[in-house]
């Protein structure tokens, strides 16, 4: 079973990397970019076949390691095929 975990910075947390990317887009001539925030995407393959169990495991992984919940939010997406 495949899954994606999206980790993004919480609102209000300064993102200097996003700001630098925003600036670079502007200097490449892309006008009208209001803001850029940088995040992370994890693609995880699980042996688990039960979607509920897989989802629970992925939540645990996100909380314990993949995201630092002081500054980051996470969202788990499961490919239920």
């Amino acid at each position, binding site marked *: 079973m495949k899954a994606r975990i999206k980790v993004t910075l919480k609102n209000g*947390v*300064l993102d*200097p*990397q996003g700001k*630098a990317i925003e600036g670079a887009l502007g200097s490449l001539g892309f006008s009208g970019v209001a803001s850029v925030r940088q995040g992370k995407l994890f693609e995880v393959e699980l042996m688990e076949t039960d979607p509920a169990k897989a989802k629970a495991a992925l939540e645990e992984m996100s909380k*314990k*390691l*993949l995201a*630092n919940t*002081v*500054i980051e939010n996470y969202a788990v997406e499961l490919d239920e095929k």
Partner: protein
Amino acid sequence: MKSGVVVFPGSNRERDMLIALEKITGKKPAYIWHADTELPDLDLVVLCGGFSYGDYLRTGAIAARGHIMPAIARAAGKGVRVLGICNGFQILCEAGLLPGVLMRNAGLKFVCKEVKLQVANADTDFTRKYRPGEIWRCPVAHGDGNYFADTETLKRLEGEGRVGLRYAEGTNPNGSLNDIAGILNERGNVFGMMPHPENMIEPLNGATDGRALFESIMEAVA
């Protein structure tokens, strides 16, 4: 004082720290490998600087979940002094032994230079040999030293005197909130700081301003 330095794959300041501790305490510190699950009997555990696990995922994130960490948390719970320098500070935050997080420097650049530190609280086990408000010289070398915590946490840290050190006015190298350079846990026995006092202990370093930090801990555990 019985001290020990914890080494993870990618730590690179352990030698400086081992030398500094031996010179100042007169006793050979223990070398503690990350895969160990028990600590020897110590008064002070130091997590040194470097790039544990290549800073993968987030600085200190992987090391903070390493085999030795439960033993360090247990020791901290018993009141053993724990000092995290640079990557060690990042690891302590990731492990939840200190609040907040060290983010990418606001200027996005790795900074390697000398800064001035001001003692924000001289009534701690890590700063008691300094005068209140004393300003001292210390090098920094990091890319992720930008201290961040939510407003509530920051208010508590300030209110409880848990900000031990600040970058003196105008020398904040990384954008840290409230110019925070070093903080304490609630009990006051765990301290994390980004600058490197172990590199400011003998005349060859240009100054000996960092010695008092180690001497503070020696006095506290005596």
